[in-house]
């Protein structure tokens, strides 16, 4: 591979992929908590609207959504987003919908007695959420969120189809320039694999920290295969539900 291509396309491509992942993960987290908490709201209308959002954004394909935000939205509203932000918006909104289900599930898995104790102490609903429910639900959320984060990382590859110069886009350019398809695509896959590995490691230590904060210890996972298995299976649900699937 020629040196220029590597420095001018692949390395900046990796950086763009990382940036995209960070920005869309931030947006997705905000959406997930907003919508997820709204789904446990006492007002039926709020619950319905939040549920509607989740079903719509989980039901449609992220690529179609991305095309829609990129090509249709400018025609409807009269102004266009910078490609990068259009992509972040599409990824954040759709993965946020998956995340909302995780947030809702974890909030519901906090024992009802905890909520009732909050009522007995005459906490306001928001105080209950902030001081009782969330601190116990967040450690539960981290393993599924970790899986979702890897899905999101994989989803960022879609932006190359919009012409954003991420690492997949760079791979395509290098293939056209050098015709060494096998090498460049293998390298690209390894790059994604390494980023995914680093993300899951980070999430593991976050899980340890938050669990220690409420006096629990994470489940042990020994041996080579334990380290290799990025995705975590939750002990509570034997059959993994597709809370994160449907990315790319």
């Amino acid at each position: 591979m020629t040196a220029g291509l590597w420095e001018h396309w692949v390395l900046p491509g990796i950086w763009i992929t990382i940036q995209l992942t960070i920005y869309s993960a931030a947006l997705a987290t905000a959406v997930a908590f907003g919508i997820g908490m709204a789904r446990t709201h006492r007002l039926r209308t709020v619950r319905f609207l939040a549920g509607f959002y989740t079903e719509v954004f989980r039901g449609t394909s992220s690529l179609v959504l991305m095309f829609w935000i990129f090509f249709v939205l400018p025609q409807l509203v009269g102004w266009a987003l910078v490609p990068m932000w259009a992509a972040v918006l599409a990824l954040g909104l759709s993965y946020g919908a998956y995340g909302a289900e995780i947030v809702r599930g974890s909030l519901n898995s906090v024992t009802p007695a905890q909520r009732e104790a909050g009522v007995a102490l005459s906490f306001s609903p928001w105080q209950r959420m902030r001081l009782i429910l969330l601190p116990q639900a967040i450690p539960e959320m981290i393993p599924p969120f970790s899986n979702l984060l890897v899905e999101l990382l994989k989803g960022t590859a879609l932006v190359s189809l919009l012409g954003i110069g991420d690492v997949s886009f760079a791979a395509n350019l290098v293939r056209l320039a050098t015709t060494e398809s096998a090498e460049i695509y293998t390298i690209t896959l390894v790059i994604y694999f390494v980023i995914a590995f680093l993300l899951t490691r980070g999430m593991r230590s976050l899980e340890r920290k938050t669990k220690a904060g409420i006096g629990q210890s994470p489940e042990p996972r020994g041996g080579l295969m334990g380290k290799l298995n990025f995705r975590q299976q939750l002990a509570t649900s034997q059959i993994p539900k597709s809370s994160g699937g449907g990315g790319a």
Partner: protein
Amino acid sequence: MPHFWDGVLVTLQVLALGSLISFSLGLVWALLFRAPSRFVRWPVGIVTEFIRNTPLLVQLFFFFFVLPDWGIQFSALTTGTIAIGLHYSTYTAQVYRAGIEAVPEGQWEAATALSLPYRHTWTAVILPQAIRRVIPALGNYVIAMLKDTPLLASIGVLELLQRSRLQAAETFQYTEALTVVGIAFIVIAYPSSLLLRALERRLVV
């Protein structure tokens, strides 16, 4: 509109064949996870983790551009279906694995007590119980796969998204075309997920 229905047909075709590949290959992975030798378990573990944690889009390009270099010629449709089936087989493998692990230990012991041959223990005792439990979870991945079929447009498969884009390019009606595609996905995906929820209530005890 004929373009639209042709696109739906291709999408569903990819979905059906892709599910078939992922269901059968996933079971093979899951059984290999339980192989007696670690020299089988580890490579299978590494390969499936690699496939599962890298983007389908890049895998699609890999197969589309690299296979011809190795002298294997497939149509874009075949390549796409194989790639999507292979990618999702690594997900279904985990589902099967969890399903197998959820079969109570007593069932294994009972099979041993009856001195059933190893093969019959699997085919007559373990798998029927495991697969029954995992059908709803497998269905979830069919829906996920449905939402990934538009990726095949990138290698030129004339599925729903690609047909609509071509149609839109002729008439300049991007708004309508892309909106219809988006709605089409919701219209297929939402009732399917309701169906799965109902199935889950009936099958999982």
